């Protein structure tokens, strides 16, 4: 049991706290990005850092992603621990080379002699009418690339623990935070994501999924906001006598296949929730990992609840019905019985 009193923080506050904690502990950590210094991050991820650590270690950048993410790769090679924010995952198109050709391959190309302890923080997700260049998830785009880890918390507890683990990891880690959980007043937040966050040092290990609800009849796999859809649907399914186990992946790459298989071996049914585009997604990877396991018996064909293969439309009448929700998870589950 934790000795500290219960501290309920938003994911934004938990991320800011993790950064401050690690900056105080490790002088190699510095934070940079657009609007992260004086403003404290458009999504509140760097609040209070400029005042506490000063402009040398907390740097507002020009709108020059190719330069500052490339610079972060060089900083990491030189032994620093850069944490870089690019406020929307949609914006990575302009600087992808630094990420997938430099950061992700630095260790490999150098035969392991040069590491890249770099964290890229970025927001994901839609549902609030921000249009197709500010609402994407692109989980699979990043999880596809070898040499890079991808994590996404569903709660503020995990946000702090995953961010500390990400900064300490010797590899590039993409830290995604979902806008529906971020705790910014102007976006609305699923209250369940605001959890107790220990003040003390702790990590949530990268590469380990968590069973957040136990059940025997079906495994619901989610991450980020998908965990909350899964938990909501598990309540609804319980009323129908279906026991749903909810697995929060927490890390998308490397995928914790062991935990997925352990749960599905028990339940024999699998539904994956993924608010990214449908084809070639992380949900597809989870299902394929189960289906290619020879000795695993499924009672029904697995299914995925995803966004379809269309750009995110602006109008709420088009966007919102296409996003995964608890009702769709319940329907997909029922169809397996």
């Amino acid at each position, binding site marked *: 049991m934790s000795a500290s009193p219960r501290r309920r923080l938003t994911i934004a506050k938990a991320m800011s706290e993790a950064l401050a904690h690690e900056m105080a502990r490790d002088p190699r950590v510095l934070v940079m990005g*657009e*609007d992260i210094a*004086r*403003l404290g991050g*458009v999504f509140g991820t760097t609040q209070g850092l400029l005042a506490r650590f000063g402009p040398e270690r907390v740097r*507002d*950048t*020009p*709108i*020059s*992603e*190719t*330069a500052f993410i490339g610079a972060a790769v060089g900083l990491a090679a030189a032994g620093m621990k850069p944490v870089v924010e690019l406020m929307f995952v*949609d*914006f990575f*198109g*302009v600087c992808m080379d630094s990420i997938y050709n430099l950061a992700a391959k630095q260790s490999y190309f150098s035969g392991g002699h040069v590491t890249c302890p770099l964290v890229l923080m970025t927001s994901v997700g839609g*549902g*609030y*009418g*921000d*249009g*197709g*260049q*500010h609402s994407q998830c692109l989980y699979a785009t990043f999880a596809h690339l070898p040499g890079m880890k991808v994590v996404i918390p569903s709660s503020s507890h995990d946000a702090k623990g995953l961010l500390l683990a990400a900064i300490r990891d010797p590899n590039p880690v993409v830290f995604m935070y979902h806008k529906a959980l971020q705790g910014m*007043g*102007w*976006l*609305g937040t699923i209250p369940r994501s605001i959890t107790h966050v220990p003040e003390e040092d702790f990590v949530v290990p990268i590469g380990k999924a968590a069973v957040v609800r136990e059940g025997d009849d079906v495994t619901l796999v989610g991450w980020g906001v998908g965990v909350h859809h899964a938990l909501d649907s598990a309540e609804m399914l319980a009323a129908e006598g279906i026991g749903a186990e909810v697995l929060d992946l927490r890390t998308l790459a490397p995928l914790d296949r062991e935990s997925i298989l352990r749960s599905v071996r028990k339940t024999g049914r699998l539904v994956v929730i993924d608010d990214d585009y449908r084809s070639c997604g992380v949900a597809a990877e989870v299902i394929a990992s189960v289906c290619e396991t020879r000795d695993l018996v499924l009672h029904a064909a697995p299914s995925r609840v995803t966004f*379809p*293969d*269309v*750009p995110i*439309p*602006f*109008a*709420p*009448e*088009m*966007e919102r*019905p*296409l996003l995964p929700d608890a009702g769709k998870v319940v329907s997909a589950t029922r169809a397996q019985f």
Partner: protein
Amino acid sequence: MRPEREQRLWMYAMMVKSRAYEQAIKPAYLQGKQPVFNMANGPIPGEMHLSDGQEPCAAGVCAHLGPEDTVTATHRPHHIAIAKGVDLNAMTAEIFGRRSGLSGGRGGHMHLFDPKVNFCCSGIIAQGMGPAVGAGLAAKLSGGRQVAVSFIGEGAANQGAFHEALNLAAVWAVPVVFVIEDNAYGISVSKRESTAVEQNAIRAQAYNMPGVFVPGNDPDAIYAAAGEAISRARRGEGPSLIEIETCRLEGHFMGDAEGYRPNGEVERLKAADPIPRYRQRLIEDGVASADLAALEKRAQSEVDAAFAHARVAEAPAVEDAFEKVFASGAGQ
């Protein structure tokens, strides 16, 4: 190149219409977002970037353009769209996410496309610049006199795309004009903190093209500078860069607390609002105030009609989301 009376009235009309438009957006956007501001709610969800203060840039440049000329704009596009002649009803319906909108509600306020007047915009910084070079090159290859104009903010001049597009346009002598609207801030970060040079116009020298800085947010001065650059492009003499000192009277987006601004800045900017200033100058130069009043009334009624249309326009159905992902028909 001095604007004649007719052009000055046109510029004033565009500025007034644009301001009336943003004034109409404000209550519509805030509907459903009060007392708790949640961006997801109301008839216009998502981010809203208003152009109050930047109207002279659009009016002074677009005064030289016809529908056949291409304009690429930014995440803050309304004033430019209006001066380029984008259909006001269809634009407003798009911002409200309606089926009669420019893209049937698929794009929203940062993604306005009107091929009738060759206008488009993008929510990604500096990414309209390459397409403008392409539009200019297409005009050149077809032997036309059309030009392309790419509007960007001053923050975009620190993007790789800015430097690549300038170089490419110069190497290929493309009829394109790059227009920087310098409103002094990229969200919260000031130009001074983010940019190695005081004026981005000087960067044109690196790409062997003319670069001018236009101070004062002055429609007549912008008209003159844009006229030179666009004429040059039409004569086949290649690209130019114009940087306009303008101002953003509102936040980066609606809901921005603007804590990054020095005390008194907004008041100072509002005191120098370019629209009443230009009105006064027109009167001093002999334009009857009754003529201006009539023009203002006409602009307001056009805006009112567009919003009235959008408010009652049919909403799209979810099935519409699956259309237009790919172009239909066989290739030719």
